C-alpha cells in the first residue's frame, strides 16, 4: 500500500474510533477526549496531504488548527466542570432534560 494511502486509512480509522467513543461512552470528560481523537485523525490527513504536496501553507494551517483546538479545550473543560458541580455526576444521561 502506498504511504499516503496507509496514513489516510489510519486517519479514517482514528476518526471512526473517536466517533464510536463520543456516541458510546457515558462520561462527559471521556467524550471530550474522544472528540480530541477525532480531531487528531483529521489533522493526520491534513498533514499527510501537506507533506504529500510539499506545501508550507498546509503546515501553517495545521498550526492554526492546533491553536483552535487549545481554545476549544479551554472553553469545554470549564463547562464540563460546571455541569459536574451542578449535578454531582459526569454521566451524560443525567443531563437529559433537553430531550424532546
Amino acid at each position, binding site marked *: 500500500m502506498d504511504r499516503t494511502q496507509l496514513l489516510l486509512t489510519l486517519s479514517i480509522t482514528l476518526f471512526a474510533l473517536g466517533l464510536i467513543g463520543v456516541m458510546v461512552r457515558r462520561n462527559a470528560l471521556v467524550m471530550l*477526549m474522544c472528540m480530541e481523537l477525532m480531531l*487528531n485523525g483529521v489533522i493526520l490527513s491534513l498533514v499527510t496531504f501537506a507533506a504529500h504536496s510539499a506545501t508550507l*501553507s498546509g503546515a501553517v494551517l495545521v498550526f492554526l488548527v492546533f491553536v483552535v483546538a487549545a*481554545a476549544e479545550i479551554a*472553553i469545554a473543560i470549564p463547562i464540563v466542570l460546571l455541569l459536574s458541580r451542578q449535578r454531582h*455526576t459526569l454521566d451524560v444521561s443525567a443531563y437529559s432534560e433537553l430531550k424532546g
Partner: protein
Amino acid sequence: MSLETLLLYFFAAAALAGGVLMLIARHPMRVALALISSMISLAGIYAILGVHVIAVFQVLIYVGAVMVFMVYVIMLLDVRDPAFLERYGRAVVPSVAVAAVLSVALGAAVSRGRIMSADYLAGLHSNSMAASFEVQPFSVEFLERYWLHFELTSVLLLAAVVAAIAVVKAGRRHDG
C-alpha cells in the same frame, strides 16, 4: 523494507492501539493516558513524514498543554462517580454500525481514488519553493505571508480566556 517504513507501521499500530484502548478503558485517567500515547505516536508519524515543526507542536501543545490540563481535571473530580464505573450507554450497537458504515464508505473512496503524484501537485502551485518543513523556512513563510492569521489567533486565544472566565463567573452566580 526500509527502517523508515518499519517505524511508520510501528507508530501507526501504536496510534491505533491507543484509540482502541480509549474505548475499552474504564477509568478516565487510563483513557487520558491512552490518548496521550496515541498523540505521541502521531507525532512520530509526523516526524517520519519530515514535518518536524508539526511534530514538535503536537507534543508541546497537545500533550504538554491540553492533555496535562485534562489530567488535572480528572484528578479534581470524584472517583466514586457512577459515570466512572459504567462504561457504556445504551446505543452501543447502532453507534458502532454508524461508525463502521462511515469508515467503510471513506475507506472505499480512499482506496478507489488515485492519489496525484507529487510532481503534478508541485506543478499546480507556481510558487513552488521546494518546501522543506524545517523550522527556518516554516517561520519565514509563517511570519511573512501569514502574519495576519498569526495575530488573529492571539485574538482568538484572548476571546477564549475571557469566555472561560465568564463561564466560571456565571456558574458562581448560580450557586450562591
